[in-house]
């Protein structure tokens, strides 16, 4: 049986991202003054989960050979919204959470409908909708702030440590993967998303439901970005319509997706790879911290790591003996 070889090849990108993260995290922990303690892990997990959620959102759209430049704005918009409505009695909090998630779904669905029926290129459509979503966020929270009766109980429960020192945020992320990503990737509509990204013409000719696939991808991307926004609120207890934050998360999500072995041409990769990509990308900042470098260096190092990782991924090009394969 040579099945395992095909399996390995299929998950190569994800495994490389995992290895990259493990190496970087090991260096970080080894040099951290406190060492491998529950607190260090929890802090790292909390920071990583935010980007991981937005990167998952980005993955879904990138798989269909699209790109979503509004994920950062949805993330910020839902953060601002959550800072108002996730408050009060447990009942109100539950409704608030649902409201935040529904907002993300609606934002994603709008993106999907514009791309599918408006026939706009995803990059243009999501720049436009992203600006609108950010505008709404700014209208909600012209100044940073939070509700007086913000549900800090729920926030603390989801950002602290479970018994045994396991970060609650990490457990939540695993649950989200199991509830959203795994069913999606194994469902016919997920298969259709891969097919659409790999070759839209062949997918159409095969009778694949391209429209449902794209709609599902954009809508779930909105939902995942909203979960990210919710978590941001849990960490900060407040909402802030920060343009810089939105843009950073959008760009970093693309970086994480690439690090995670997801092809920007579509059809190849997995959200799990993107999660490891996100954690690896986040660890760069932590490494600078333990090596006592100025935080100002962070963008430069992140750029270098991204370039190196992408170059390693492209190393196979040196083995190509047929130049036509360079363009495949």
């Amino acid at each position: 049986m040579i099945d395992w070889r095909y399996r390995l090849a299929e998950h190569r990108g994800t495994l490389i991202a995992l290895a990259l993260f493990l190496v970087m995290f090991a260096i970080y922990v080894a040099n951290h003054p406190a060492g491998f303690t529950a607190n260090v892990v929890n802090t790292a997990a909390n920071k990583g989960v935010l980007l991981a959620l937005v990167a998952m959102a980005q993955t879904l759209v990138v798989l269909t050979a699209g790109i979503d430049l509004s994920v950062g704005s949805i993330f910020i918009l839902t953060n601002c919204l959550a800072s108002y409505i996730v408050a009060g009695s447990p009942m109100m909090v539950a409704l608030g959470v649902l409201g935040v998630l529904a907002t993300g779904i609606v934002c994603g669905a709008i993106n999907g409908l514009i791309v599918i029926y408006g026939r706009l290129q995803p990059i243009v459509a999501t720049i436009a909708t992203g600006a609108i979503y950010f505008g709404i966020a700014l209208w909600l929270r012209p100044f940073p702030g939070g509700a007086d009766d913000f549900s800090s109980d729920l926030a603390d429960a989801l950002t602290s440590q479970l018994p045994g020192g396991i970060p609650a945020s990490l457990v939540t992320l695993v649950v989200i993967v199991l509830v959203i990503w795994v069913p999606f990737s194994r469902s016919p509509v997920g298969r259709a998303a891969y097919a659409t990204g790999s070759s839209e013409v062949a997918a159409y000719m095969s009778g694949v439901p391209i429209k449902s696939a794209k709609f599902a991808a954009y809508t779930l991307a909105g939902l995942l970005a909203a979960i990210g926004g919710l978590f941001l609120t849990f960490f900060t207890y407040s909402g802030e319509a920060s343009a810089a934050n939105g843009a950073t998360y959008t760009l970093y999500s693309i970086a994480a997706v690439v690090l995670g072995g997801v092809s920007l041409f579509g059809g190849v990769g997995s959200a799990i790879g993107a999660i490891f990509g996100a954690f690896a990308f986040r660890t760069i900042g932590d490494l600078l911290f333990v090596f006592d470098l100025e935080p100002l260096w962070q963008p430069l190092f992140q750029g270098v790591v991204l370039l190196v990782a992408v170059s390693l991924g492209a190393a196979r090009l040196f083995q190509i003996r047929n130049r036509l394969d360079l363009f495949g």
Partner: protein
Amino acid sequence: MTDQVPLFRMEGVSKRYGGVRALEKADLVVHGGRVHAILGENGAGKSTLIKIMAGVVAPDEGRMLFRGSEVTFPDPASANAAGIVCIFQELSLIPDLSVADNIVISNPPTTFGMIDRRAQRRIAEEALARAGGEDIHPMAPVKDLPLSRRQIVEIAKALARRPSILILDEATSALTAADVSKVFDVLRRLRTEGLALLYISHRMHEIAEIADECTVFRNGRNVATYAAGAKTDNEVVELMIGREYRSVFPDKPPVAPEDRKPVIEVRNLSWTDRLRGVSLVARPGEVVGLGGLDGQGQRELLLALFGVLKGVSGEVLVDGEPVSIGGPSAAKSKRIGMALIPEDRKTEGLMLPMSVRDNLSLAALDRLSHFGVIDRAAERSAVGEMIRLLDIRTAGTAIPVGALSGGNQQKVVIAKWLMVTPRIILLNDPTRGIDVGTKQEIYQLLRKLADSGAAILFYSTDYDELIGCCDRVLVLYDGAIRRTLVGNEITERALVASALNIATNEEGPGLRPAVRG
């Protein structure tokens, strides 16, 4: 033996694209348990006909009856659901997905809304076995398979949908003779199971072998339907082209004298394990064929000469002097003067959205420009000359080349390279999926080019072409030239025999090539 109500009937169906009538009041009757061949030149309406049947395009008028009741297909999925499945000439496989994923793509088996991978694997293995592709691993990514294997996957994928009408549009054009006979066994079995098979091919002997009845299309109309074997090949071709038909192939000149100085000489060319010590010469005025089974290194040989492959060992001499060709731009330089007509015109030959003019002048831009600026007038006259020379049927030079028919697209690819007036012309299966009329024009053009002093290396999977066009044929096997056939030695029997002879040769590669002739 035909059943009372036909399985499928099309009445008065028309389709226009802009001002062009692709299909004009076409009728077609399809019965179960029969192989129905559709013949016609490119642009005769065959593709439009099957696209309408498969739900890819909607007809302007007319109606379709399936099992006696009227149907409309707004998209391919609804045609599939009705049981009409088409294997298109342009492959419809998804490159990044695995073979099994592709086979079940239209209707994956699910349990609780998720794809059941075990069931998928079982369906894929079963379909592959039915299509004669037991050697293909269901988990292999499609993009790693060679073209002929992909075609088998394509057939397996169609069978997995349990069709009642299976349309094969040039489905065998990428297959070797051995694979074709396997596919034919499959088709015969499907016929006994009661399926209706619509078979579109430009290979006359395949139609003679498999078809029960034939319908000929010309200019968008069905001009004749007859029982297979009721007409001679010449009569059929006359029906197709609507004019009297003489020999497809131009006369060959006497075999070129051995003492003529070769334009290109290749010594001991090797590349990875795909080319093993290939040596050949081509003289001006010669058409040298490359034969053998598909995938024996013919394509790699042409790419190696054109400078596309890295790490090639051996020597290439042009006009008796050693040269090293670093890539296509070096190959086309005045000093070497080489052109390669690629196999896949859509990806390697043309920029489909760009205009006919831009495509034609692309390779020759350095000759048409002064100080880095394109001389529009020179370009216009050169392009016009090529369109006349090759009789390219286009509504203008500014329309996108993707709007032309397949045969005319291929003419544009050839014309593009003729603009650089090459002395060495490499052709990689240039007539695949092209109608008889255009083929004939291409053969004549090849001979004309040879007569004007070019040396031509011509790889073809069609034995008739090698026999009809070539002065010499080099038969390749496992990356080495195993036999050379000259002049009258080039017969179908000799070509097949040398390929089979070699194929059953247990001594395998590494032996000294048995060059004769």
